[in-house]
């Protein structure tokens, strides 16, 4: 348990090290999620548009 506390305290610099790593992970995760979500959304939009066309009997693209 003491080990864990020692690790978390980071030699007294916990107030700097954890926020630094934290913001890196938060920003990276945020951009990751945003990118993946908009990519999936674009795939769905394209698929539904194609489906729509096929139903109308158009030739695709």
């Amino acid at each position, binding site marked *: 348990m003491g080990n864990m506390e020692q*690790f978390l305290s*980071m*030699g*007294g*610099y916990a107030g*700097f*090290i954890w*926020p*630094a*790593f934290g*913001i*890196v992970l938060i*920003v*990276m995760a945020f*951009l*990751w999620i945003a*990118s*993946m979500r*908009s*990519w999936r959304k*674009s*795939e769905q*939009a*394209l698929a539904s*548009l194609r489906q729509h*066309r096929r139903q109308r009997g158009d030739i695709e*693209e």
Partner: protein
Amino acid sequence: MSIHYFANPARFTRLAGRIQPWAGGLTAVLLLIGLYMALVEAPADYQQGDTVRIMFVHVPAAWMAMFCYTFLAVASAVALIWRHPLADLAAKASAPIGASFTFLALVTGSIWGKPMWGTWWVWDARLTSVLILFFLYLGYMALWEAIEDGQKAGKAAAVLALVGAVNVPIIKFSVDWWNTLHQPASVLRMDGPAIHSSMLWPLLIMALAFKAYFVTLLLARMRMELNLRRIRAMRLAERTS
């Protein structure tokens, strides 16, 4: 294999679909290993104490800031000179990733500066250059957004990226020049101690993790842009027919 081999969007999509999951997995694995090494395994520095651990995210983020801009500039050159149809998408897709890493390099540098320099911000040559690089990214992304016609926006942004790329070394030189004239009086340099191999490994692993992250997001964002471009083309065809 010519530069136009991957110009075929369908071929690109197929290839990207195959690479993307692997790159994503690699990112997760490398990031976990890197974080473990950086936070647990690496020894505290005898001078800087545990704060040296911030280096393991700060330095790779700063590398990525430069790397992404280089990538952006090269992709822009390919788009302008060879009119490669995917190159401007690659440039556009890389900009937010580069801007994020630039932002992270600034924030972590500032957090590192507080215990090292006693202040959140000093107008150190390197921090200042990175700040200017951040503005270049913002300008590039804003130009893409501002011009409605996608083709024109791509070319204009490519011209801006190349102008910026020519200017980056000049800006760097001028800021170094300025900094030697106004040397901040106090403080420990951030260069710190010569790098020991116990620190080199976590640094390299984190750098590789960031690279894999870049590849994953680049592919996802390029596929998204490609989809949007297709949707726009289909809608346009519908309206004109």
